[in-house]
């Protein structure tokens, strides 16, 4: 089974700190994603990457950046953490599919999440 591992389950950081959230997948997937999950808002895409050193903004990239130096690792960076970034952060990966049928078969694989509290 594909595994997507997020390095921390819980984090507490202070306002203004630089925060790194790490995600590693072990199935050679091209695509990796960072979402944040908030009650009533579901999952919102922050950034995604479809190749090493490639990144694209999602729907809510403000206040975040990402790094993908190796295929298996995708890091989310909060340059200066703020209280409104308190949330559950989910990482996901998927293969770069050629057809929609392949995509339908694979879908996404999610990590267990990192619950970040900024105080």
């Amino acid at each position, binding site marked *: 089974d594909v595994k*997507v591992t997020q390095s921390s389950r819980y984090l507490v950081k202070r306002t203004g700190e630089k925060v790194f959230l790490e995600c590693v997948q072990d199935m050679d997937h091209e*695509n990796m*994603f960072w*979402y944040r999950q908030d*009650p*009533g*808002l*579901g*999952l*919102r*895409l922050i950034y*995604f*990457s*479809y190749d090493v050193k490639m990144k*694209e903004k*999602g729907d809510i990239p403000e206040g975040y950046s990402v790094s993908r130096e190796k295929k298996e690792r995708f890091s989310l960076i909060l340059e200066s953490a703020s209280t409104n970034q308190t949330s559950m952060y*989910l990482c*996901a990966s*998927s293969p*770069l*599919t*050629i*057809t*929609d*049928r392949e*995509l*339908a078969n694979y*879908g*996404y694989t*999610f*990590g*267990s*999440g990192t619950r970040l509290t900024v105080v």
Partner: protein
Amino acid sequence: AQSVSQHNHHVILSEAASLELGCNYSYGGTVNLFWYVQYPGQHLQLLLKYFSGDPLVKGIKGFEAEFIKSKFSFNLRKPSVQWSDTAEYFCAVMPWGIKAAGNKLTFGGGTRVLVKP
């Protein structure tokens, strides 16, 4: 851009009751449709997906969903719920044919389901 709307934020029901969760999406083209489930303390898991063909899709754990193209809906159903179905359920869409650059999923706001024993 696509968007997804889930009608209920919270649903409370008793064991053996039937469950139906509404999902409507907004997108001008063809989509792939998904339902994900997140059990307490666990990661998101795929319940079922619609790719093409029969609009009635069967997933794991007795769940099914029906795609009604004319209504832009993909409602999730289960005839008889169990206490173990207590979870948060997310509907998601992905535009058809966008394969490179991410295959982005857009999620609805989620529905928390509590099944009372």
